[in-house]
């Protein structure tokens, strides 16, 4: 039962409300749905942050893309810098929920909901993105890789608000992709997901990043998969080794969508496809966004 509500007109007003125990709501696509499903009742005190235009911006420099906490999945998926330089994030943002979820759901809310199956987490971790957590006492930067501590929990203090995400742009010659195993194209949650990015210079992999999604209590980077790719030609042997490393790093659960054994088996398949897609994009070959649809449509292996 919610007994207090304020719609903040400024970030400072929102931070004051958080300091007094209120919880933030933006698009409501997780918070309100969770309450309707009986997962968790709505908080006693709510502060709506949807009117805070200063959290809505997206600005790109030569080095990075900064996204405000209220940027929606639809805005991310359509952003030209995301599509060209951070394509894995376009793959991810364009398959979140349904169209209504993507125009109402926000990046900040998605990250702070801390689902191990969230689509955008893997790409952000692979790119080395940071979030800004702000409170009345000041602000700090936390790597997306360090933000979640388990399903639904983060390192953020209750008085802190996620205000911005900064994503470093990978070098030219980088290809990246996010792929999920899905039972249907839309209104789906990743059964298993994986992200890969590779930079190819002089025919060799000069940099690589791999993350696994819905395969552990948090989304996780897989350094062993990155090492398997580094210095290789990005060919089938290296891709296969990286995929096996990604599967070995998984600690899946059984739930209504898949058994742990099935997830473990599919981890290697999905990782192989996503690394192959990243290598293909790095070589300038076309893999349509979202990569999940492009790779699973014809039943390719």
């Amino acid at each position, binding site marked *: 039962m*919610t007994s207090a509500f304020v*719609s903040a007109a400024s970030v400072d007003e929102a931070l004051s409300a958080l300091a007094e125990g209120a919880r933030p709501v933006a698009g409501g*696509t997780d918070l309100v749905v969770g309450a309707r*499903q009986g997962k968790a009742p*709505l908080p006693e005190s*709510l502060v709506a942050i949807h009117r805070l235009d200063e959290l809505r911006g997206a600005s790109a420099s030569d080095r990075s893309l900064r996204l405000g906490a209220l940027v929606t999945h639809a805005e991310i998926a359509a952003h030209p810098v995301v599509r060209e330089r951070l394509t894995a994030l376009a793959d991810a943002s364009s398959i979140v929920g349904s*169209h209504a979820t993507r125009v*109402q759901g926000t990046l900040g809310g998605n990250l702070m909901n801390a689902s191990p199956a969230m689509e955008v987490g893997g790409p952000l971790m692979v790119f080395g993105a940071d979030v800004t957590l702000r409170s009345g006492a000041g602000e700090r930067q936390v790597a997306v890789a360090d933000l979640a501590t388990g399903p639904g929990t983060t390192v953020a203090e209750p008085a802190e608000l996620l205000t911005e995400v900064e994503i470093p742009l990978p070098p030219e010659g980088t290809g990246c992709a996010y792929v999920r195993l899905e039972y249907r*194209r839309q*209104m789906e949650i990743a059964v298993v997901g994986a992200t890969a990015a590779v930079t190819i210079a002089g025919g060799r992999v000069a940099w690589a990043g791999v993350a696994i999604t819905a395969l552990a209590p948090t989304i996780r980077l897989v350094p062993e998969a990155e090492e398997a790719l580094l210095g290789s030609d990005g060919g089938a042997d290296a891709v296969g080794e990286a995929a096996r490393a990604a599967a070995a790093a998984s600690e899946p659960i059984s739930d209504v969508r898949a058994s742990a054994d099935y997830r473990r088996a599919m981890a290697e398949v999905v990782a192989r496809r996503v690394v192959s897609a990243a290598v293909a994009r790095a070589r300038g070959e076309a893999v349509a966004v979202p990569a999940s649809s492009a790779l699973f449509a014809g039943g390719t292996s």
Partner: protein
Amino acid sequence: MKVPVTLNVNEVAYPLELEPETTLLFAVREGVGLTGAKEGCDDSECGACMMLLDGQPVNSCSYLGVQADGREVTTVEGLAEGDELSPLQRAFLEHGGVQCGFCTPGMLVSATALLAAEPRPSEGEVRIALSGNLCRCTGYDGIVKAVLEVAERS
């Protein structure tokens, strides 16, 4: 705790007092009295409750009414022009896009938003835009044909 709000529904301002947890769907159905939007799953899965909020689709069953304060809400009742059905509404009827009718208000609202943003969508774009609207009767074909026909006429 009652929060005073004004919901601008189909270009009419309705002053209401809402509990913070009251959904936009409940506020419009019970407070405003427009019952076109339906409660299906109450869970953001089925889209029967779809409304436009400042022109963008929202699952109104899972959106707080207090957050719609001062904003523009469009429901299926706002699509017709006077006594004339909108082209989409007429095309739904002509193509058999309506059977039991429960999903129809949400389908029309989502399709209206699509055509406002993309007047000439591909069939794939229509299916993606309507993927959050479930229909248990029609098999979707009549609905998709209706949207594509209106798009071709534009």
